[in-house]
């Protein structure tokens, strides 16, 4: 049993940190790809992180054109909107502050330190030359948070809601990144095979799945195998299937019977993935499949809100 508000603060704290980690990976990859790519396609590469975060429109309110520096200013340090790493870490820390009573000292300190470092970073500013270090730092902070959570938190509902936040965000990100990057990679298939190779590795690197692909399928990059890995693989922590499996399990763990509807929605989606195959995805069309998945994930999020906070 825990306060509804605390449950949601934990959920969002973890969700914002996961989002920051994903965005750091995505930005890192997009900047690298923009260097590799032919000049006329650079803007397309740079626009990927904006598309994933749904912030393209906001970006053009503040900037005329997409350049690496503009992108970094906007998606890393800009506090005027919610899609910057700065805002995400601030939001995570604000939520952590709400639920300090539910956190171990280690978890609180890891989040608070991320915020203190972020304030320092903003004084220094970010350019292409220190960008990779900043992204490494974000990933390390996220790992440290997760490590502290795994290593020090009681396995009670606080932990369950925190993990739910991480996994809901992760499932959402994998689907969005795959959707956008897959289309870009497909376009290069007939042209230049080196470029195509980089495009497919970019899909995998953006989702921390490159090594996993090589271990599973060897060196040759095939579009449907990439999709299969990221959607259906039971062992890859960022695959839709493993996220949904854990989401369904976590909802089962939460005390009480108020979460029945969320459980049903999550278990049903988890079963679809558990018993899905790549032929069905190909038949359906990857884009349509992923759009449908994103709708259902959104549905589960609002069901969780209704179940655990909706009563009057």
């Amino acid at each position, binding site marked *: 049993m825990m*306060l509804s508000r605390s449950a949601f603060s934990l959920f969002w704290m973890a969700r914002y940190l996961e989002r920051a980690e994903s965005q750091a990976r995505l930005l890192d990859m997009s900047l690298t790809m923009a260097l590799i790519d032919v000049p006329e396609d650079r803007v397309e590469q740079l626009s990927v992180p904006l598309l994933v975060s749904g912030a393209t429109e906001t970006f053009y309110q503040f900037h005329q054109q997409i350049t690496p520096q503009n992108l970094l200013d906007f998606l890393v340090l800009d506090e005027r909107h919610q899609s910057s790493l700065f805002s995400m870490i601030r939001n995570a820390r604000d939520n952590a502050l709400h639920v300090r*009573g539910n956190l171990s000292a280690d978890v609180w300190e890891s989040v608070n330190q991320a915020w203190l470092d972020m304030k320092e970073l903003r004084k220094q500013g970010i350019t292409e030359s220190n960008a990779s270090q900043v992204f490494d730092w974000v990933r390390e902070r996220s790992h440290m948070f997760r490590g502290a959570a795994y290593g020090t938190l009681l396995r009670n509902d606080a932990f369950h809601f925190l993990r739910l936040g991480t996994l809901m965000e992760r499932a959402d990100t994998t689907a969005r990144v795959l959707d956008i990057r897959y289309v870009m990679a497909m376009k290069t298939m007939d042209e230049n095979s080196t470029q195509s190779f980089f495009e497919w590795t970019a899909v995998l690197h953006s989702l921390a799945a490159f090594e996993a692909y090589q271990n599973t399928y060897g060196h040759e990059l095939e579009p449907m195998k990439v999709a299969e890995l990221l959607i259906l693989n039971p062992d890859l922590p960022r695959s839709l299937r493993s996220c949904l499996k854990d989401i369904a399990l976590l909802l089962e763990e939460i005390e009480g019977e108020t979460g029945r509807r969320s459980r049903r929605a999550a278990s049903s989606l988890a079963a679809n993935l558990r018993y899905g195959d790549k032929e069905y995805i190909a038949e359906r069309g990857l884009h349509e499949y992923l759009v449908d998945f994103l709708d259902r994930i959104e549905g589960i999020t609002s069901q969780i809100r209704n179940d655990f906070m909706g009563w009057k």
Partner: protein
Amino acid sequence: MHIQTPAPGLYDELFDENNRVRPHCRMLEQWLEKSDEGLIAEKRREANVLFQRLGITFNVYGEDQGADRLIPFDLIPRIISASDWQKLQAGLKQRVHALNKFLFDIYHDYDIVKAGVISAEQVFANPQYQPGMQALKLPRNLYSHIAGIDLIRHNDGDFYVLEDNLRCPSGVSYMLENRRMMMRLFPELFAHSSVAPVDQYPNLLGETLRAASLKPDPTVVVLTPGRFNSAYFEHAFLARQMGVELVEGADLFVHQNKVYMKTTVGPQQVDVIYRRIDDDFLDPLAGNPQSMLGVPGLYSAYRTGNVVLTNAMGTGVADDKSIYPYVPDMIRFYLDEEPILKNVPTWQCRKQKDLQYVLDHLDELVVKEAQGAGGYGMLIGPTASKKEISEFRSLLRARPDDYIAQPTLSLSTCPTFVDEGVAPRHLDLRPFVLSGKKIQMVPGGLTRVALKKGSLVVNSSQGGGTKDTWVLEADL
């Protein structure tokens, strides 16, 4: 390291009047002597980083919301001998005991007024008096379950009570975190001394809060105004240490005169609310209708006896500066004992004779608002400008009832790290007294120190810092 000796005529916690180190402080002095400045500077930096990382920060009213500031922490502890503490502890328990009896009395039988010890007007016309509390039965007849008493040590070496805080006294988290910090930075200091531990405080507080209800296993929560409150860190800290929920007004609701919190498994009834919100903001239906912090219907649930508030409503009347001069009489009246701790002589400007004295001696006195807190709205005569004195003169003439005056006390000093090295600075002491099944204290308190040379204002909102407070288990 060189330690500046104190100015003559002041009591120093480390040195006696002949500038010899007091016996119970010798170990500290030896340690200071052999520590070099580089090491100490490094430890200070380390402490600041740790406090930031732990998030031990506070907000200052009137500054940017969410601007986290650290209360400056001084590394040199303030040491209280075992014999001093025994007297302090006995005196504080006695005082809080009498104050709780006074609160019960003025909301029930009015014996003290009937006996003529305090005038009816001073009690019942006090803006902090809550007529709604009259005849309300509270468990164990307790009002101020958690009290923080501010003391200073005068140049005669005696402790004087400066102020009783019976509403929502704060600062105990600094007492606990300062100790934790010192043990982390200087473990060797603790290995060679017998400092009494304070970390049992959250357990005692939890025990006190559960004892505030007559239910066998009551549900306790800490109610905070939220993260923009200056003491939010402390609210969260105490809730976490006690293992109870930290709630905001919006997390609670009242149904059929019972208070519930909104949880993931549905409504859960709440029995004891350790509220860190002022009386007026607790219930928008009963107090300030603009309050977004409170819980509609809470007052009615409280009146019905379905929930206990700690501290009770209406305790402010007893810690008001205009009631303060009567506390020694309360001790005699209710306990039939002589007060162990001294009060500071106080002129009540409401009395014509006292007012005249105060007006004639403004340049030597400290003038305070009877209702004020936090070091705001006060005049320190000896250091005030002519302009400030004449401003206060007109304030006093216009609203004499709102002010009291006291002699300028020479707060004791203690060696403190400052820019010029280790120099004496003035300090006070706030121990905490818990009243439940019995009256309990941990050996220690919050020591606040004025970091500016010669300054007597120790409030954190006015540039004061804190020190770890060591009570020795035995005097050597």
